[in-house]
């Protein structure tokens, strides 16, 4: 819900993009709404007399075009580009790696180098455990059709496209549970292709992974 309280370092950047664009869109929107509503409020037809038949205004037309251009070019270069670069950059040596596989209709979370693999079903949501303050690289694949890994609390999703390996980083900054859903329609049980992200302190994560998913979190 807006305003967001970011739960990953990536979400701080994503939230900043939302903020800049929301302010700009609200400002432009209010001005244009006022301009649309002014004529019907001010200049209703009261007589048969023709109004002045002006067919344009060079300064208004050119000025508004240049203003619109300045706004979108500014937003693109000063918000979209830097934010997109920051979010889509992946670190060379992440602290953890998780292989995420989407399939009809659940998720498999495998932690390479450990025996830990968590597989869900439409009836039982699998849990993706992430360490707080560490950068985890997600290697996302699909086993069948297009899916999409979406954690609304992280303001982020990435599609799982069959035949394509997608990598992205998540660096949680808050412990807690976050809802996860499949965002790309994938057939009959798409609705129930949910999961949960469980962010725990790094020490608890280390204990959990070395116990091979036997040690539960208190």
């Amino acid at each position, binding site marked *: *819900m807006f305003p967001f309280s970011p739960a990953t370092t990536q979400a701080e950047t*994503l939230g900043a*993009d*939302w903020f800049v*664009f*929301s302010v700009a*869109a609200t400002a*432009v929107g209010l001005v*244009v*709404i006022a*301009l*649309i509503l002014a*004529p*019907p409020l001010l*200049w*209703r*037809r009261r007589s048969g*007399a*023709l*109004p*002045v*038949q*002006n*067919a*344009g*205004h060079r300064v*208004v*037309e050119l000025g*508004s*075009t240049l203003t619109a*251009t300045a706004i979108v070019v500014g*937003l*693109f270069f000063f*918000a*979209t*580009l830097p934010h*997109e670069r920051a*979010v*889509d950059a992946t670190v060379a040596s992440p602290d953890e790696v998780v292989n995420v596989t989407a399939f*009809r209709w659940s998720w498999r979370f495998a932690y390479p180098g450990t025996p830990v693999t968590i597989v869900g079903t439409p009836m039982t949501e699998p849990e993706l455990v992430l360490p707080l303050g560490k950068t985890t690289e997600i290697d996302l694949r699909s086993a069948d*059709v*297009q899916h*999409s890994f979406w954690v*609304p609390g992280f*303001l*982020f*999703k990435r*599609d799982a*496209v*069959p*035949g*394509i390996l997608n990598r992205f980083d998540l660096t949680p900054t808050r412990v807690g549970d976050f*809802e996860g859903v499949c*965002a*790309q*329609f994938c*057939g*009959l*049980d798409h*609705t129930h292709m949910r999961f949960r992200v469980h962010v725990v302190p790094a020490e608890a994560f280390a204990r959990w992974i070395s116990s091979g998913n036997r040690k539960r979190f208190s």
Partner: protein
Amino acid sequence: MNWLTSTDHKHIARLYFLSTFVFFGVAGILAMLIRAQLAQPGLTLLSPHAYDQVFTLHGTAMIFLFIAPFGIGLANFLVPLQIGAPDMAFPRLNATSVWMFIFGGIIVLAGAAASGGGASAGWSGYAPLSEIEIGTGAGQDLWIIGLLMVSVSTILTAINLLVTVLVYRAPGMTMWRMPIFTWEIVATALMILMAFPSLTAALAGLLIDRRLGGHLFDPSTGGSAILYEHLFWFFGHPEVYVMILPYFGVITEVIATFSRKPVFGYVGLVLAAFAIAGLSMGVWAHHLFTTGAVANPFFSGVSFLIAIPTGIKFVNWIGTMWRGSLELTTAMLFALGFMLNFLLGGLTGILIASPPIDYQAHDSYFVVAHFHYTLGGGSMFAVFAAIFFWFPKVYGFRLSERLGKWTFWPMFIGFNLTFLPMHLSGLEGMPRRVETYPAIGHLPLLNLLSSLGTAIIASGVVIFLVNLVLSARARVPAGDDPWGGFTLEWATSSPPPEFNFKELPSIRSERPAFDARHPEIAPTR
């Protein structure tokens, strides 16, 4: 048999109006089923498979069988009249197009009766989902075949319209004197010619994979899933503008007429239409921002640029109304509603053109809200503006203005009540195309508001149907020119005779009918 064999463009247009409205009714009922199912969390009114078919056919029918072809029908009626031509360039081809469209539409919907049910992979029919999971039921195949017919019909009509405009203009009707609606149709036809072949290819590929053992789109057998996404959206994004440019034309004509002023910035409006058409060919992959397989900055940048010509149009509409003599007819109310709704859809469009925002909004109800504000609050409101404006010309009698206003207000209020909350439910994590949702956060409240809004929209549509029946009984003659129109269609009888004009007024500007009424200020050469 005349209704079957006639090649008169006005008759063919009426076939488009009737058929698209029947399809609109079907799509609207499907929308109400969707909102009934989602009114509360955990409802089981529809089974998951039924729900998948309902939203697939809702989207398919609204886009392919209502919003786009209603614009085609309007162009069929208006373009020959507005340029002073007796008919379309190829009347028999025109008849072929309309019947191909009607039967294509019926085939798409009839698929729902096939064993195994109708198409259920969404209106975009992503492969390999539409190939492997949907199975071998005939419903998905009928969806493909029906849409192939609609696609080919649309391409043929685009050629027909272009040739008509280029070759059949009346003496004096130079290109720069054509009404804005006709200009928008020229830009639309060019987009159709560039974009629809890609749809035809995508659909044919699906059929080849499903029925002829092809492997174009299934990676498990060496195909490419992302290729389908590219082919589909290379059509799909220009299609968005195919569904809006004709309606920009409608709004421009309605606003100018009911402000009694010439169009503000005529040349700028025309150039903006072509700028949108050109740019629309280079933005398709903004539908693929979250795939990680496209150059996001490029497609984001080009998408932003489309905001500029769209902004120009708003300036021109406001400029046309500025210090005018405004008459708030039903058509004008719908035009004002169009501007307010489309403004919001346009602004959220700029937001989701920024990939960092799209990473949250994509495939969520935020995007559902966005495109309904452009296609529903935008195009559909313009459809009603067009109906109330041109109905007297098309059918020769008037619609009740009072019932018209009773149509506008429930539709405007209901529309915003339905779709404004969807921005928030999307941000709260509600994905598209789910048949239910958990009772967390504000989702139950937001969805209930959306469902209530849909019922209010429906009440407006019902009042419109009552209006049709009562007005058809009263049959108040329209007269040649009930509104003080500007363009040539208002300089002939209502409905126009076969071959349209007994005689043409002299054409010395882009509003010859206005000039004929006001010789004191008309250009003399």
